Structure formats: structure tokens, C-alpha cells
């Protein structure tokens, strides 16, 4: 594993008495693509702004390569930021925008020309030097902002919902471009988004946040398959969350039945939340399923159908390529590995 480049220790920040970031601890490794994911107001942007130096933490420390940088102003940090609304300098052309940081560092003209040319090639805007930034499309402006930040060769790039203002198709393209770029230039990306799909596609590590607290840190696959709590399960993808009881290791009871599962480490008879992803449920003949229910709604979603099946007061959401008629009786079946058991929130208190 590569070394830690940024470490946040007991970081706290309040606005008007409301804790935006509440005592968080994380570290970020060199060359990692880390995403801070959460709903708006969860503290992800505040965390990013503290790393960038735009906000001062109330308490706690920020370390950059082992040095405490709490009191360092943004212009002295070897970190650059891509802002949500690009924040380009509208009174300058593309070249001057990208040259801004280099000029401050008094880079010689020929070196500056060479670096800017290289950057424009990286973001595929060759020949755009003299263009005024107002004449560019949203995607092009965003790429100028990326070039403007990367040309300074920062060790860490902060990205604050950089694709939020783009349309869906462009957003998808830029997602791929950004993660390719991150691999090519080999620097650490800290990315903030509320879009769970974006987070899962692009990142090495996802940090899920809510109410200023870190809910879970893990790889996209871990976060999706093994959500730690109800919030993560609900926020990442669609899920069926049922209340259950962990009878013993590898055995859980919910929906009035016992199921084999792959989870362990709970107390016997501990109340738990059980998550089953909609795409993990198979629809069978009524007599073959673990659970017996009636289809209440079917919506065509393109690749799959989204069906709701009611069974003893609970509505299961199911994603399937086979359509069932509304009102028909079906069975639902799933394997032990499809059942994810989580600690019930507040059960410890």
C-alpha cells in the first residue's frame, strides 16, 4: 500500500451551532481516487473545503504528508481545487486561465508554453488557447478548469461536484475521462458528489457521509454489497430493508421465516436490519419461492422491470428482465449470499 498523503484527525466544524462535520477521522493514500459521498448537507463539501484551506476547522487537525497544515492559507498548499461552477476567470482567455498559477510561480515563458500545450492536449482542447472562456460549452469550461488546476502539478486534486452542472451524457463521458486522467497523471483525487452511481463508477475508495459523520469507508463493491447500516443501504442503490433477528451466526429470522446467511459476529437473538438488493431477488412460481406474494405494480425501466410485490404487509422491490402481470401470485427466492445483515441503528443504546 502506498503512503498516506492526507490525514484528518477529529475534524469538527460547526455553522451557527449546527455541526456540519462532526469529529471525523480518515486518511487518504497517495494516488488514490477517494469519493466523499452523501446527501446535500452531509458535510462532504465542508470537509473538502477544509482540506483546500477555504474553511478553518473548529477543532481537529489536517495533516498533509505528515505535516499539520491547519493554519496554511490555500495559496501555500500543494493542493488544487476544481469548483462546482468551474470558477474560471471570465476576463481572461483559455491560455491565460491555465497560465494563472504558473505566472505566479514566475515560470519561464517557454516552459509555460510547453506545459500549457501538454495540458490542453490532456483535456483535448488543443488550439483553444485564444478562445474566450465564455464562448466555451459547459464541458469545455470544466476541462479548462481541470487543466488550470493540473498544470500546477498538485499532489492532491480536490473536486467539488465538478460534473453537477453538465447534462447526463456529457457527465458519463467526463466520468470516464476523469478517472482515466487520474490514472495517467498519477495524483490523488478527492471527489465530492451526491451521485452514488458516479461514486461507485469512479472511485477506489468511497467515504459515505451523513449528518457530518462518516457512515462507511470502503471499496465501491464493499459499500454496495456490504452496507454497514440502514442509511448506507438506502443511499447506495435501491434496497429492501427488513427488520429481523439474528438467531445465531449464519442464521437470521425475518418475514416470519428462518434463512441461512453468510453473516456472523452478532449476539444471539440480536435485532438486526436485513438488506436484500432488488436485483438479487428471483421471481419464481408461487410454490417454489421462500416468500409468497402478489404483484402490485410494474414499471418498465429500460433494461429491466421494476416490480413491487406485497407479502404480509411488506412491499418488496424487485428488478427483473421478466415481466409479471399486476395481481398475479408469485414466489420470491434468494440465496444466503444475497442476504446482508446489518446492526440495527440505535440498537446499541
Amino acid at each position: 500500500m502506498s503512503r498516506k498523503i492526507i490525514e484528518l484527525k477529529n475534524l469538527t466544524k460547526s455553522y451557527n451551532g449546527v455541526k456540519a462535520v462532526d469529529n471525523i477521522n480518515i486518511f487518504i493514500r497517495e494516488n488514490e481516487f477517494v469519493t466523499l459521498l452523501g446527501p446535500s448537507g452531509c458535510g462532504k463539501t465542508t470537509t473538502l473545503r477544509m482540506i483546500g484551506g477555504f474553511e478553518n476547522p473548529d477543532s481537529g487537525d489536517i495533516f498533509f504528508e505528515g505535516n499539520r497544515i491547519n493554519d496554511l492559507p490555500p495559496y501555500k498548499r500543494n493542493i488544487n481545487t476544481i469548483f462546482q461552477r468551474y470558477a474560471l476567470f471570465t476576463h481572461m482567455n483559455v491560455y491565460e486561465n491555465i497560465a494563472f498559477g504558473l505566472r505566479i510561480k514566475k515560470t519561464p515563458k517557454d516552459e509555460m508554453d510547453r506545459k500549457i500545450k501538454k495540458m490542453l492536449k490532456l483535456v483535448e482542447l488543443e488550439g483553444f488557447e485564444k478562445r474566450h472562456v465564455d464562448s466555451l460549452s459547459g464541458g469545455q469550461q470544466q476541462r479548462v478548469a481541470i487543466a488550470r488546476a493540473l498544470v500546477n502539478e498538485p499532489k492532491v486534486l480536490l473536486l467539488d461536484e465538478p460534473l453537477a452542472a453538465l447534462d447526463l451524457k456529457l457527465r458519463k463521458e467526463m466520468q470516464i475521462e476523469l478517472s482515466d486522467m487520474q490514472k495517467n497523471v498519477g495524483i490523488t483525487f478527492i471527489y465530492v458528489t451526491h451521485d452514488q452511481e458516479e461514486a461507485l463508477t469512479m472511485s477506489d475508495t468511497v467515504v459515505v457521509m451523513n449528518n457530518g459523520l462518516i457512515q462507511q469507508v470502503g471499496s465501491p463493491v464493499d459499500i454496495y454489497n456490504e452496507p454497514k447500516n440502514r442509511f448506507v443501504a438506502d443511499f447506495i442503490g435501491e434496497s429492501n430493508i427488513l427488520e429481523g433477528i439474528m438467531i445465531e451466526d449464519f442464521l437470521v429470522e425475518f418475514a416470519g421465516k428462518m434463512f441461512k446467511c453468510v453473516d456472523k459476529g452478532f449476539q444471539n437473538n440480536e435485532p438486526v436490519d436485513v438488506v436484500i438488493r432488488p436485483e438479487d431477488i428471483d421471481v419464481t412460481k408461487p410454490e417454489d419461492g421462500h416468500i409468497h406474494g402478489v404483484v402490485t405494480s410494474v414499471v418498465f425501466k429500460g433494461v429491466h422491470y421494476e416490480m413491487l410485490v406485497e407479502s404480509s404487509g411488506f412491499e418488496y422491490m424487485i428488478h427483473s428482465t421478466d415481466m409479471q402481470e399486476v395481481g398475479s401470485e408469485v414466489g420470491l427466492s434468494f440465496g444466503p449470499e444475497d442476504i446482508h445483515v446489518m446492526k440495527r441503528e440505535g440498537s446499541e443504546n
Partner: protein
Amino acid sequence: MKNRAKLLAYPYVLWMAIFIVIPLLLVFFYSITSGDIHDSSSFSFTLEHYAKFFDMLYLNVIWKSFRLAVISTVLCLLLGYPVAYIISKSRQQHKSLLLLFFLLPIWMNFLLRTYAWMAILSPNGFLNKALEFIGLPPIEIMPGQTAVVLGMVYNFLPFMVLPIYTVLSKIDKNVLEAAMDLGANRFITFIKIILPLSVPGVVTGITMVFMPAVSTFVISRLLGGGKELLIGNLIEQQFTIYRDWHFGSVLSIILMIMILVSMAVMSKVDNDSEEEGRSAMW
């Protein structure tokens, strides 16, 4: 729908024609004619009034008007920009209060404000009384150019502060953060980002201060004590004292041309700052 909306413009067009275009044409007509103003049959076309203007006496008045207006505008800019900057940077709840302090004087009558300055600056005014009280010699700035400039700056400062404040408060905070992020300290951020982005507000402010300053006659009459004749006073005199409408019209036309020229120059500066970098686009 479109045609109906057009109808709404007619009252204004009519208003403009009656109260702006026709009077302007009349002023122009008087400027190129001579004769008894009460007897239109005595009118004959002539350019003699224009020729009369090119006398050192009048050129000096024009020069002085320009000089004082420029000095006042520069002082307004030097005082107004920092004020606008500080207001735009202050906390939201303080902003409106600070702005109010600057706008409150405008709500009072212009003459009243200028008379107040007379009371302060006159040889036996508050200022000299205060100086006497603390044992300092009196200063005699009124009547005089210093008092006129002071009156202009006081009266027109809000017209400089407001447009600059508006432009400054519209600058995206992220853009300033981006500059800091790219290595610019506060000073460089101001010089390379804030100042260029605020040029349109500065241009508007200069225009809005310079125009009334160059044509004022009240301030110069009250605070200049009749000694400091500006072009505004000259025009006033032609109409009220000498009853020479023809020469008064000539002076008005010349003042108007000069204001138009200076406005054209200013808008060129404004456009250049906006077009910078864009010019080479095509």
C-alpha cells in the same frame, strides 16, 4: 401580442419627442441663429456665437470646469472604491446598514446639503469655530476651488460607490477562491482578478460622477462664492442675466458634445476590458 406591447411604448415616445427631442432641436436652432428672441422674424442664421466661444475667457472656464470635475471624479474613485470594497466584503446583515449610511444623504435635498456645507466651511462656520476652540488658526477654503471640489465629492460620492459595489458583490466567491487556490495571495487576487472584473462598475461610476460634476452650477455658485465660474454657471448666466439665449445654447451644445465624447471614450475603455482575449477569437 407583440404589436399590442408596442402600443405601450407610444406614450414614452411621445414624451421623448415633446420634452427631449424638440427642446434639443430648439437649443440647436438658437445656437445657429441670432436676433431678438421675442421676435422670430428678426432671426438670421449665423455661426458668430460659436466663433465667440473660442475666446480665452470662455476656454478658461471650460478648462476649469473639466479640471475640477476630473479632480472630483478621481477623488470619488479613490474614496469610493475602498468603501464599495469594504461594504461588499462585510457580513450580509451589516451590508444594508452600511449602504444606508451612504445612501441616506441622497434622500435629502441637494440644495440643503450644499447649504449645510456652506455653514460648515464659511469663514465663520463650524469648521473654523472648532479650529479656534482647539487653538488652531482658521482655514479659508470657502469661497474657493477646494470648497467646490469638496461639495462635488460629497454630493456625488454615492454615485461612485453604488455601481462599484454592485459589480463587486456580483463577483463569484468561487472565482476568488480559485485564484487563492492557484497560488495567489490576497494582493495578487485583488490586482489580477477583482480589479479587472470591477472595471465596468468603475466606468459607470466615473460617468455618473463626471457628468453632473462638469455641468453643475449650484455647487460652484454656493461654495465658490461667485468667484469660481464654471461652464454651468456661464450657461445659467446667459439665460438668466444676459438674456443671450443664442450664446447660452452654443455653450449647452458644446458641453453636451464634450460629455458625449468623454462617455464614448469611457465606454471604449469598458469594452476593451471585456473584449480582452476575446478579440483574437475569430
